[in-house]
């Protein structure tokens, strides 16, 4: 081992403790990220239904993504990347916040999951290709949605699937995600800027401009009784699925 690697090693040890703490917050199902944990099952249900239909995967297959490459852009602490890896995919997770990436790496290691986490933007993946590209609740934060979608589209392997989710720009989403969620502290203040929310029509336009075809749009609803669930109502938040 050379000197710089050793130095790097000690930094990693200190950071590991720090990120371990953060990971505990992200990954505690009762902690501050509880909402994100609750979002996961309907999200995954939607992904599963989509790949079963598109790739002819059997419903009882436990690792339906075996042999496939998946990229999750804006992966946070890996809440989606880990399930994709458990489903058998070789996953690359990328996030603009290096802190998130460190947390994600730390957690995956403890789970015995080999996930390729990288800090950076979607540009950093240019030239690579993936069977499944996901980017959940990210596009409403980027500066240029059209350019972002085009970069995601370029990552898609032949026969690949892209699944995006984002809040719609409606009075309901404003009430739910800004007034209520941020007002009550369920989501940190300033997380969302409602004016940047993208409607399904606008997103469809971006996706088609990038040379893809939209095959499905599905709503993500919320009710106190049923929690987050898939629905045909796109007014709050929605998934958009596209293929080449």
């Amino acid at each position, binding site marked *: 081992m050379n000197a710089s690697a050793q130095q790097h090693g000690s930094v990693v040890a200190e950071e590991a403790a720090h990120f371990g703490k953060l990971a505990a917050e992200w990954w*505690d199902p009762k902690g501050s990220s509880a909402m994100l944990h*609750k979002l*996961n099952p309907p999200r995954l249900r939607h992904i599963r239904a989509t790949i079963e239909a598109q790739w002819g995967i059997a419903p009882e297959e*436990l*690792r339906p993504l075996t042999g496939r490459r998946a990229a999750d852009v804006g992966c946070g602490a890996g809440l989606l990347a*880990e399930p994709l*890896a458990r*489903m058998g995919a070789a996953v690359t997770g990328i996030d603009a916040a290096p802190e998130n990436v460190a947390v994600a790496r730390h957690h995956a290691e*403890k789970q015995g999951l080999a996930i390729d986490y990288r800090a950076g933007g979607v540009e950093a993946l240019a030239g690579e290709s993936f069977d499944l590209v996901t980017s959940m609740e990210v596009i409403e934060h980027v500066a240029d949605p059209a350019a972002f979608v085009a970069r995601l589209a370029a990552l898609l392997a032949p026969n690949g699937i892209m699944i995006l989710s984002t809040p719609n720009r409606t009075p309901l989403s404003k009430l739910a995600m800004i007034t209520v969620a941020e007002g009550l502290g369920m989501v940190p203040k300033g997380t969302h800027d409602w004016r940047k929310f993208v409607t399904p029509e606008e997103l469809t336009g971006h996706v088609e401009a990038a040379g893809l075809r939209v095959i499905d749009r599905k709503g993500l609803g919320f009710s106190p009784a049923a929690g987050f669930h898939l629905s045909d109502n796109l007014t709050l938040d929605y998934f958009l699925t596209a293929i080449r």
Partner: protein
Amino acid sequence: MERQDVIILGGGLVGLTLGIALARHGIRAAVIDPADPDKVLASGFDGRASAVASAPWRMLDAIGVGAHLQGRGCPIDAIRVQDGLSPESLIFEPSADDGALGHMFENRDLRIALDTTARAADGLTLLRPARPVDVHRDLDGVRVTLADGREVEGSLLIGAEGRQSPTREAAGITCARWSYDHVAMIASIAHEKPHGNVAYEIFYTTGPFAILPLVDDAEGRHRSALVWTVDKKHAPAMLGLPDRAYQAEAEKRMGGMLGKVSLISPRSSYPLGFHHAARITDTRLALVGDAAHGIHPIAGQGVNLGYRDVAALTEVLVEGMRLGLDPGDAQLLARYQRWRSLDSFMVAASTDGLTRLFGIPGRTARTVRRIGLGAVQRLGPLKGRFMAEARGETGKLPRLLQGMAI
């Protein structure tokens, strides 16, 4: 050792079944039990017999255990409940196309079938005998250290160690419990007349007396299992009876309905109690079987409740893992807890109610019981509910209990 999805502590009738059900669906599981399987399977280790209700039986069939039990189970075509030897009785009899209410198996046959299936199951690791000395659970995972120093790591821990579950205690899960001041004396008998596949539950004020039909043995002798409940203070005297006197006493309680009786197994006895865990989950932990709940054996529902735990938990885990969720995911465990808690408590409470109702001496109570039985007999819907209960078919049925893979 490879990281396990599920680590099961306790390879008894319920824990081993869970391991098989999970492995059938591709989930990696390890079963850890300090008992030596050779001893457990030896004749004389467990002389009991269990009524397996029809829904759990469909599950055993679906996960490949049924194939090893062909011809071993005696169908229960009717259950006759009566107050002492009074001629009035309540008869539960399914309609012709409904099939048996359940099957009676000798526990030893069940254990052998489970063992055979488990040994052949892909992805199921059997660590027996192996004693867990340290169990660590946190948000990241589970680690079990064995007495020989080996370590087993996994995502979810299952407490299936029976009624004294140390895992339940360590999790600080409290149990509602009481004892019945009764002891169950267990024995197998051969009898002169065939039982006609009828199970008898005879309620005496001294305690219930159950005669459960078994298949004829190799010599063609008709056989039944006796569960004979006696007051704790009379137990030592009853257990001390010579076989001849015991047989005579049993014949008397049976009113001679099966003719001459002879003992064909050693007698054993079990203190009876009721316990019900306040919750059945914790961080990366779920309880199944007697670790979660133990009830009076009179209705033959103990192992069936455990099998319903297995069916529900397997469905929750399989569905969750197909979505890529961690098997220890708190949301999955919450679903298991919600699914099981009401059902197991209802069964426990109604069984307890039954034994209490029949445990009260005196003429008034007797009349109430008579009217009660007659009324139940006349009230179709109520009887239907009792029947569904006996079959293990109440609540939203997990797919395995419908005989379907998940």
